[in-house]
């Protein structure tokens, strides 16, 4: 006979200890604990300990300040999707492998599944919503549609964000550079041919001032 518990914690790392470990100190500054959930650890420079339990904090998403109440252990992806109905970033691998959750943090691409929401306090979060709408698509988004760079489309927002970053940094990429730059975004339906053509064409059209 044996007893098993899913998700049991063999190392006995408590959530409290974990948060201390990752140094969520600066982030915790914006985290207002509900009840007894925030504490100052011993010592002057020691990080604040937050949680367990809900806290309230503010995230800046696509230029808007949004107040959210969530546990400190919640990832940015879960907080955006579950609390704020910001669902363009998708949850696929949930561990930094596929790129489907790619967003910008202060203009740099990041995997929303692989950071805590409270690490994003005080930073500028930008999602695909800032890049265009169906009525006013960016040159890259138009090229994605034209080159049929999506099938089911579940990977597409991640690709658009990653490819936007690629073109920001290298407005004139070679085919090889597109392959390198987007090699970390995965797609099960197999839309890579369209993605590659779309990015190359968007680079051309952006040069033309379009």
């Amino acid at each position, binding site marked *: 006979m044996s007893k098993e518990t899913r998700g049991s914690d063999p190392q006995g790392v408590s959530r409290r200890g974990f948060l201390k470990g990752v140094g969520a100190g600066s982030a915790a500054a914006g985290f207002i604990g509900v009840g007894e959930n925030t504490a100052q650890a011993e010592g002057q420079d020691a990080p604040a300990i937050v949680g367990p339990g809900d806290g309230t904090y503010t995230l800046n998403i696509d230029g808007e300040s949004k107040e959210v109440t969530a546990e400190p252990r919640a990832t940015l992806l879960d907080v955006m999707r*579950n609390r704020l109905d910001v669902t363009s970033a998708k949850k696929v691998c949930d561990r930094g492998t596929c790129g489907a959750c790619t967003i910008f943090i202060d203009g740099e691409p990041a995997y929303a599944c692989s950071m805590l929401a409270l690490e994003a306090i005080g930073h500028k979060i930008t999602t695909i919503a800032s890049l265009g709408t169906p009525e006013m698509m960016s040159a890259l988004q138009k090229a994605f549609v034209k080159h049929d760079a999506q*099938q089911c*489309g579940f990977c597409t927002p991640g690709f658009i964000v990653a490819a936007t970053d690629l073109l920001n940094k290298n407005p004139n990429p070679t085919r090889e550079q597109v392959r390198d730059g987007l090699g970390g975004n995965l797609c*099960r339906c*197999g839309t890579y041919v369209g993605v590659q053509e779309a990015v190359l064409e968007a680079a051309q059209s952006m040069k033309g001032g379009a």
Partner: protein
Amino acid sequence: MASPQWPKADKRLHIGKPYDRLDGPIKSTGQAKYAYDVNVPGMLYAKVFPSRYALADVNSIDTSAAEAMDGVKAVWIDEGVLGKEVRYVGQIIAAVAAETEELAAEAIALVKVDYTPKEALIIDTDPSLGSGRPSEREEGTPAEAFEAADVVHEGYYGIPVITHCCFEAHGQVCDVNEAGAQFWPSTQNVSKYANGMGESLGVPESEIKVDCQVMGGGFGSKFGHDKWGVVGGLLSKKAGRPVKLMLERDLELMVGGNRPSAYGTVKVGADKDGNVTAIDAKLFGTGGNGGYRPPPVPYVFTKIPNQLSSGQRIQTNRGGQRAWRAPGHPQGCFITMAAMEDTAAKLGMDALDFFKQNLALTNRPELYAQELDIAADMIGYKEKAHLRGDSGDGPVKRGLGISIHQWGGAGHPSECDVSIHADGSVECRIGTQDLGVGTRTCVTMVLAETMGLPMDAVKANIGNNAYPISGASGGSTTIGGVSSSTRLAATAALNKLLDVVAARMGEDALSLEASNGRIQVTGDDSKSVTWNEACAMLGTNSINERGVNEPGESTKMGLMDSGVGGCQMADVSVDIETGVVTINEMVAVQDCGLIIDMKTATTQVHGGLIMGVTYALFEECVYDNRTGRMLNADMEFYRLAGLKDIGTLKVHMMTGPGFDERGVIGLGEPPVISPGAAISNAVANAIGLRVPELPLTPDRVLNAIAKGGQS
């Protein structure tokens, strides 16, 4: 009068042109709402408790600690396994729904299950572990034929279990109460998703509403509502709140469906001129705890005069198989085409010559001959081809490989309602779904084509079970089914309108047609009214007509057909020092009858090639043979091909006379069948010996080289 037959090439307004998919803009801007994205007020989050054992008695399930937790609103346990067995790792035993996803995860960790583990069968590579008697088949006189053959090749081939790995996990959001239910699932089967659910949920089945406008991939794994559909529904009913239940990635890979393995020895006999005379295949494999049918061998070369085959099922304690894009075909294709190519190599013959020599053994010799020539031109076969292993000095060897495949692709039964309103608007309602293949776009094209209107003048409503019933999207049956039912409904509705207009114009309805936004006397736009003028004649009425696709009838009418063939070739480089296989180029030549949207059709073929590269080079479910746990149940070690892995891909669609007049045929499965075979053959051609198993990982390549190939 409009006739439902497809218009001739010079009369086509939309059909056959490369159109952008209509949901491209919402997908490319992140606004498309998938099941996973549905958030409704008061929604709870569910998590499931999967079995840790591959085979065990379940003595007790204790959910008291979870139930006592703040924020937990409903708990479910599977009474069906209590006191009985769980049969694979990941089998769902219990579930909780809580206010937040974090609380649900914490609560599920508090569930305690007391098991008595038993010895499970995990391994699928030993045919002696098979259950039941093998299936057997004999044609002609194989023993004599092998005796008489000038050359006999014998080899071992294997292709392991792989999984669907849909980007959007299986699952749904639902809201269930006594009176009825609303489900937002990720499904391939909107019309029949709820079938059989009513009783388990205690809800009248006719009151279960299903909506799925976009979905994040299925590939054959999302036909039913599944256990998690019922569990989500029961949790919702218990809590009196909507519930979101999506599988986590590890479970998705373990229990969301997989493709059966296939292993075995194949013997091929041929005369000295390269004519294949006999084949003998002894195959085995597992579909986990699901069923198993051995793959079709010989594949495509089905007319080999003397055949012997046997297939042995190994019933393992693993998640059950589900249809995986072209069920059985990629395995049968790989095993057959590899054995054929090995036979060519043994004869010292060029593989292309050998394949061509034996096309009489297929059902479509002329088509394959044509396609092989086109593919050979596209890949530069003449310039690049060499006999097996004749690939020069240096550690990087280059080679070409060939494969051919077949599929049915007949349209499924489908019903569609078309309405024409007095304000000139046109819409259809059809209970189909768009898996990302362009169904919504194609239905709209057919509707607009029939009315002689631009695309934006008509609207297709799909993805809801309130609409007329259309088949599940599997087996490449959708496009033939929905384009036929839409065409039939649209033609019937248009003819009603022509009757009204004819009476007003004083013309015979038989002489009228819809063309370029007008209703006119056929070929004479001086006697015409605009579309809007014509519809205004309806006054306060609308026209509503239903089209029913009955596959037999529609095939006779030429609206749809079945039976396609395709050819693919691969150009690869293999580094014999590292074992790394690189795809330089792949070409695909494919027929599928009348193509509705050339752009989304071409995308399908690209997608098939890329999925094919993935299972040829990377994909494999690795199980721990002792515990039955899948060791790579994540996307880091269950590897998919990325943009850097696919090389250059070229697609040629067979269209025009000889193809178009067959009507519409499905395209989802065919392009994914050949890549494994073509790539494996290219590797053998490059390095001079067969790597007997897929995927062609560096370790397998190096092992094969170290062994010096098969005897």
